[in-house]
């Protein structure tokens, strides 16, 4: 059995943050628990208190605000996201990415925000969220702050969340008109984390790239925007030479690690391969 725990059900995010502040190291947040519970089985962590987010009214909401941003509450499951007509139509990159997470059983309960907070380097959603320039609304016992997700992933399994903070909501801006997106995931077996995952957003005009955003999972201890690669594409047609150069720059920026799924060297090479494929996939969609 798992070690003994108490299951606390706060009624608000502020109350949840208060419980984290009060219990410190002995408390962990739980939403779907799809990462947390296996960690409890493995004794990677042994919190005494589980602070549930599922009891908080409204926290599972997925909705569009008046500015056209998508707002995703901490309790919203992957399943809600991938089946939501709002998400599928307005933020297809997000739906396409989330479909590739783990397995249906895990997506039925696991939350997008929980996945982001765990910050596994092979998780799929971060690359898509970075490309869409999402930001997080974070609630602590001292108040609330907004943080671009660009500044959220600090270190291997380490995020910018303070111990008493709850990531309550992710805000994702509307996708620019005419932009084409794609997420390609490379892994060996179904359910695996990404060896390399590449999210791309492309805006083309008269055959030339107006704007390019490229983000990668799996290739470094934290997900990252391949900004040098992006710069190399702006203003140019997406011919083989420019795509090759962008892939090379993205690979250069990677700090791949070796693990049971792939060696660092192999990962690095796959960055190159999959950045090219993702750019071509997005370009093909842009030209439809």
């Amino acid at each position: 059995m798992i070690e003994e725990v108490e299951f606390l059900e706060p009624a608000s995010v502020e109350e949840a943050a208060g419980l984290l502040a009060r219990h410190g190291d002995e408390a962990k947040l739980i939403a779907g628990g799809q990462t947390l519970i296996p960690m409890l089985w493995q004794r990677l962590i042994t919190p005494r208190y589980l602070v549930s987010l599922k009891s908080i009214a409204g926290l599972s909401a997925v909705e569009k605000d008046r500015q056209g941003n998508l707002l995703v509450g901490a309790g919203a499951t992957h399943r809600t996201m991938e089946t939501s007509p709002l998400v599928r139509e307005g933020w297809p990159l997000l739906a396409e990415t989330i479909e590739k997470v783990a397995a249906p059983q895990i997506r039925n309960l696991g939350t997008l925000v929980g996945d982001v907070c765990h910050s596994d380097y092979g998780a799929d959603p971060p690359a898509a969220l970075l490309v869409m320039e999402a930001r997080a609304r974070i609630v602590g016992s001292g108040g609330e702050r907004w943080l671009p997700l660009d500044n959220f992933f600090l270190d291997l399994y380490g995020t910018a969340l303070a111990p008493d903070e709850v990531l309550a909501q992710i805000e994702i801006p509307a996708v620019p008109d005419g932009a084409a997106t794609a997420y390609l995931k490379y892994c060996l077996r179904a359910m695996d984390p990404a060896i390399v995952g590449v999210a791309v957003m492309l805006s083309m005009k008269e055959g030339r790239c107006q704007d390019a955003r490229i983000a990668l999972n799996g290739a470094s201890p934290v997900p990252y925007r391949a900004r040098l690669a992006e710069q190399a594409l702006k203003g140019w047609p997406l011919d083989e030479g420019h795509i090759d150069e962008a892939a090379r720059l993205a690979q250069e920026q990677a700090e791949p690690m070796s693990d049971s799924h792939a060696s660092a060297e192999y990962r690095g090479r796959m960055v190159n391969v999959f950045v090219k494929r993702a750019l071509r996939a997005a370009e093909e969609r842009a030209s439809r």
Partner: protein
Amino acid sequence: MNRKRVPLTLTVNGEEVSLNVEPRQTLLEVLRDELDLTGARRGCEENFCGACTVLLDGVAVHSCSVLAVQAQGSKVTTVEGLAADGRLHPLQEAFVEYGALQCGYCTPGMVLSALALLTEKPRPTEGQIREHLIGNLCRCTGYVKIIQAIQAAAAKMEGGAP
């Protein structure tokens, strides 16, 4: 040793059940150890293999990675809840007819996962079946007969899951 228990009420295979559980008990443990519903299996107990799959409010979950207290007020369906009046569910019949099991350990989970799929998509393509079964591993069969059985059951069920 006295460990603190909390009350839990949920509906299991159509029947309301009230019991006291430790917050640390998973849904799998409560189903097997408290309710004698041993169809859901202990496999990896790390949210991977799917041998523990049950339906929670109609959707498939890995019950090893759900705390029982998280299922408060929910409806749970285990494989034991499928055969109505002793007659096998069409999915179960198809698994038998197609020989879609060898050791049978993954089978309850497979059947329930398939039921969740057919409830949502009554005539799935082979690709959709394969994708849906990602969270259910089988070491014996190589999946071919399992997929055939699900396709046959779907056809028999004619778009309406009983």
